[in-house]
């Protein structure tokens, strides 16, 4: 009986956590669309949205409402089931990866009950992300293929080959990091980066793997289909890209999934390389404040890092022009993969000679 009670509490706790994370990522994705337009405007000496509400803050709501009220068109010659499945898959895979990110340190209640701010601490950890991310290609692929439109098909083929090409470099650059941490669990990886400075060394992985981080970052851009790697959406070449035949909220789902992906990728980048919820002098802060407040501060720190990454993504998008497709493939296969391999080799040598001797 006791076992059952504990279980229901755990399930309830997880359900609340999942709801909060889901709502949070939806909210952040919503306001990322607003922020994107605002960032672009500021960089181009414009004002950006400023009509709906103060500073245009109600703009995402207005956009969403507009998308819901638009006519929904499913092309006659499309494969109807797959056509609808496409955006659903994109949205599903976008939200699924948030499950393994540790959003904050464990909060120990007064009665000794430990609340974990991670939905699932699975021991395959980061591999789960890779699995789900590679599933995300299906969303784009199915959408483009089921549209029965040659431009969409071309664009989805581009998207798929781009995602597959860059996933190699992404994986290899991560292996170097995993060799250092010795674990796949994201909770462990974050715990190893405790604080900022320890025993005369930086604890954050960014300082141990700068090249790995760079490769990982570039590949993340490619995986997110974001400029300068946004070839699947090259409207000047492919009309609109894989979502050309989509209208109303199904199109909205595709665009929205991209922003959720951006949020989750930023969270993963901060977790893997920038210490997750760790921040300098966190031990002193932990001693000074109430544990609940400390947990919230940690969540805030992680979110700050995430927002920083999101802004960086936008920053790059509005600066760089799009690559040509052959350039994109050349960067992926002849630059990033060898670099990632070299980085892995160097890390191996460093581990063998410095840490083991």
């Amino acid at each position, binding site marked *: 009986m006791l076992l059952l009670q504990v279980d229901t509490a755990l399930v309830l706790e997880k359900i609340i956590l999942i709801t909060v994370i889901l709502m949070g990522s939806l909210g952040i994705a919503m306001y990322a669309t607003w922020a994107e337009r605002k960032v672009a405007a*500021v*960089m*181009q*000496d414009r004002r950006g949205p400023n009509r709906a509400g103060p500073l245009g803050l109600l703009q995402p709501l207005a956009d969403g409402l507009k998308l819901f009220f638009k006519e929904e068109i499913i092309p006659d010659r499309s494969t109807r089931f797959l056509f609808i499945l496409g955006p659903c898959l994109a949205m599903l895979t976008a939200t699924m990866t948030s499950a393994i990110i540790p959003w904050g340190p464990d909060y120990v209640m007064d009665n000794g009950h430990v609340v974990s701010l991670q939905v699932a601490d699975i021991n395959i950890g980061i591999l789960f992300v890779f699995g789900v991310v590679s599933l995300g290609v299906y969303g784009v692929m199915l959408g483009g293929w089921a549209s029965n439109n040659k431009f969409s098909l071309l664009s989805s083929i581009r998207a798929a080959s781009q995602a597959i090409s860059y996933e190699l470099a992404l994986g290899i650059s991560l292996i170097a990091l995993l060799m250092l941490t010795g674990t796949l669990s994201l909770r462990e990886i974050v715990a190893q980066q405790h604080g900022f400075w320890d025993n005369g060394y930086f604890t954050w992985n960014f300082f141990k793997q700068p090249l790995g981080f760079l490769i990982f970052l570039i590949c993340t851009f490619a995986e997110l289909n974001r400029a300068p790697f946004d070839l699947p959406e090259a409207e000047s070449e492919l009309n609109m890209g894989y979502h050309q035949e989509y209208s109303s909220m199904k199109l909205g789902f595709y665009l929205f999934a991209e922003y959720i992906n951006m949020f989750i990728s930023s969270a993963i980048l901060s977790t893997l390389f920038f210490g997750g919820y760790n921040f300098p002098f966190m031990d002193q802060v932990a001693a000074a404040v109430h544990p609940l407040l400390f947990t919230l501060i940690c969540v805030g720190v992680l979110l700050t890092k995430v927002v920083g990454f999101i802004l960086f993504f936008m*920053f790059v998008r*509005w*600066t760089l022009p799009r690559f040509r497709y052959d350039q994109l493939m050349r960067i992926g296969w002849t630059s990033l993969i060898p670099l990632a391999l070299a980085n892995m080799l160097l890390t191996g040598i460093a581990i063998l000679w410095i840490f083991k001797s």
Partner: protein
Amino acid sequence: MKLTNRSVQIDRSPMTFSERIYLPSIAKGLSITLSHIFKKKATVNYPEQKRPFSPVFRGLHVLNRDEEGRERCTACGLCALACPAEAITMEAAERKPGEEHLYREEKYAAKYEINMLRCIFCGYCEEACPKDAVYLSETVMPVSYTRDHFIYKKEDLLIQHPKKQDSGK
């Protein structure tokens, strides 16, 4: 042939290593966009804030009145003659006794129309007018859904009576 002194000789030497790895250029680009964050906005909040027109701006036509509110136009037809787009048509009429407060001269325009779909806003009518009657104002033409609305009649073109305007408000 050198047309301006701004032309630059293209450097076709092979790219250096720092150019080939591309990242310094990216950093440079990012710094350019970053600097734009602190620059003054070039846009104005349109409906609340309007930019002044340039002094040579040629907008919608007006038919002028004199100080007493009489129409200046005498339907001489010089504006229609000067118009390269042939947008102006008019019909003249003779002033009857008792209408001196309405029209300045013995002849006046009973009908005066400008087809704004043909008009190219060249301002020749304004130049041709010997009576200072037709002017191009500093207003932008309002939009419309029907073509009829773009044929501006006399009542659309005449500016308001200076005396009646005061009392009317």
